[in-house]
């Protein structure tokens, strides 16, 4: 596959690993923000191949994992309604609320459908004018333009039977929250390549300066990841707190201005709670007043639904890199992918699930 296979080349990976090994003279703790990168690292066992001095900690960059429990509960309440067709990316269906997930709503008669694109949800609204079609608009900055376009287009068409349940979050505020926390161990970051495809990396420059950490946007294939780690190690060794782009084929400094424009027209920055972490100021996106009629929370009056996390779950510490998943007492005991207590066990890229599925074999 063009633009994939080149970046899965074992020889190149080996060369980069050797170079990392040579460059690293001390212990370094690097966080990959993005759950997709966590997935790729564990799936390919890159963590087993890195020198012991490099510790990777897995960040909160998985929208499934950080979508707060109350959003899930609101989704469940809306999806159960008679007049609603509830649409969602496949990822969200297994995320447990307090007692249920969307699959259970579906088996109880709710019309819950998986879509690949938010525009497909809008199409369902066109095809079912007598139904209320709700799309669960989760995601980071990568997904925000897609979600924004669905709303934008619905407004243009005057599609009143379409609405979105928004749980959009953003990376830089989460990075700041992690770096400001007293228990922080992270010394350098791999930034999420596809978030940067949209946002560019300009906004990471002040973070790098303020907290004195190197930040390296990179891709998802093993060679991209290893090149990103190598670069981060080099910057750390040289004491340079800079942003260096390792994903030039997709990321530029300014990102995608067209996408950002529509995003900014539809969404505004708001405070958002993150599952397991709590409220992070200015870390989310909500619909602007002009699009309030597409806000499913308002349409179905679910803003009053609140929820309580499982007291056993330590996903907050996991998401902030303070605890490895297998350090959680419930890991693989009370909490498994079949019976997840926290969202990090649900998404296949959630740190707990990734650990569970791909954990290193200690022989």
């Amino acid at each position, binding site marked *: *596959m063009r633009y*994939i296979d080149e970046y*899965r080349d*074992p020889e190149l*990976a*080996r060369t980069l690993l050797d170079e990392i090994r040579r460059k690293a003279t001390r212990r370094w703790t690097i966080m990959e923000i993005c*759950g*997709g990168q966590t997935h790729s690292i*564990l*799936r*390919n*066992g*890159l963590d*087993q*191949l890195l020198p012991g001095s490099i510790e990777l900690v897995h960040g909160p960059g*998985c*929208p*499934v994992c950080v979508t707060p429990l109350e959003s899930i509960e609101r989704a469940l309440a809306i999806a159960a309604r008679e007049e609603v067709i509830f649409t969602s*990316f*496949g*990822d969200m*269906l*297994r995320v447990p609320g307090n007692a249920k997930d969307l699959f259970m709503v579906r088996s109880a008669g709710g019309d819950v*459908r*998986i*879509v*690949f*694109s938010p525009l*497909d949800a809008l199409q*369902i609204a066109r095809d079912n004018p007598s139904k209320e079609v709700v799309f669960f608009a989760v*995601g980071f900055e990568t*997904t925000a333009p897609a979600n924004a376009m669905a709303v934008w287009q619905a407004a243009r068409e005057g599609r009143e039977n379409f609405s979105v349940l928004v749980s959009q979050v953003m990376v830089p505020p989460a990075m700041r929250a992690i770096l400001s926390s007293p228990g922080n161990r992270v010394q350098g970051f791999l930034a999420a390549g596809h978030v940067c495809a949209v946002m560019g990396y300009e906004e990471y420059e002040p973070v790098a300066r303020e907290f004195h950490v190197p930040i390296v946007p990179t891709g998802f294939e*093993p060679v991209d990841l290893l090149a990103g780690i190598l670069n981060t190690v080099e910057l750390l060794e040289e004491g340079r707190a800079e942003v260096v782009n390792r994903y030039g084929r997709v990321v530029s400094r300014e990102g995608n201005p067209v996408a950002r424009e529509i995003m900014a027209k539809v969404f505004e920055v708001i405070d958002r709670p993150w599952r397991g972490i709590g409220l992070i100021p200015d870390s989310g996106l909500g619909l602007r007043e002009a699009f309030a009629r597409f806000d499913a929370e308002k349409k179905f009056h679910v803003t009053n639904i609140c929820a309580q996390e499982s007291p056993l779950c330590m996903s907050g510490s996991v998401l902030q890199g303070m605890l490895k998943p297998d350090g959680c007492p419930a890991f693989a005991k009370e909490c498994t*992918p*079949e019976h997840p207590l926290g969202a990090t066990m649900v*998404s*296949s*890229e959630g740190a707990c699930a990734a650990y*569970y*599925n*791909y*954990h*290193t*074999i200690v*022989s």
Partner: protein
Amino acid sequence: MTIAPACPTPIMQHETVQMAHGAGGRLSQALMQRVFMPHLSNAFLDLLDDQAKLDLPLGRTAFTTDTYVVSPVFFPGGNIGELAVNGTVNDLAVGGARPLYLSAGFVLEEGLLLAELETIVKSMAEAARRAGVMIVTGDTKVVGKGQCDKIFINTSGIGVIREGVNLSCRNLKAGDSIILSGTVGDHGMAIMTSREGLSFHSRITSDCVALNGMIGSILDELPCAIHAMRDPTRGGVAATLNELASSSSVGIEINESTIPVKPDVRGACELLGIDPLHVANEGKLVVAVAADNAREALDLIRSFDPGRDAVIIGSVVDDHPGMVVMRTLYGSRRIIDLPLGEQLPRIC
């Protein structure tokens, strides 16, 4: 002016399945005569008895059943009818049996186009002919609109196990080679990409095929060297390997670089974030064979069309009993776990 007598004759020529088609009356008979018999007719079925009376050859009998529900009912490379015949034939064959007779039970949704039903029945007849089995008894029920998805089919099958063959998923021994008969994920991705709402324009073709011919030859040539066979359907190769490893209490090691995946299947899997090892196949075989005979078995499998892409993907080991471990392209190792329920397309 004369008034015609009341009671107009009921309509007998329908375009779609009616509730009455399943009620056992005239319409049921009409359905039999018009749709089923022209294609499935054989000496047993033609008697229209409530049961087929069979003389089985001597030996141990294998008996299996499976119910087929698939959406969409027609998919690139086949339809539910073919699937229902080939699937049950394969379930018999992987146990070392020569498949002989099948039953077919249909649950039809009111409103199903009779033309579609006929296409399905016709492919069942063709599939049965190709596999050398006979459909000897059957049943049809009709349920109301919305109570099933067009058509569900159950097939049961009877076969006779070859003398001297003892295949079981408990038979794996350390040192055995694991052969995979071809590319993974074709059927599951054919189904998934032809579903509505996923924006695909692909035509990934299902691998749905009967394997009894190929399996028969392998067992004729190497009756003792083959320790176990499985067709990796739901849950894919990952589930099958896990079943084999845990049933035999052995470990299995496979190499990522050897797993064959068709380019378009790989593309679709990448897009949807799905591991091809977790995706269903309907015409593939996983074989555990004594290492000394692995080469011979491989060449034999490759000489058949459904096995032309066969490879040795790994071996059975003493380590980590019950566990399947894959050596990645980079030399690291990871556990291949059982997939968790339904495969969902993901965005993250």
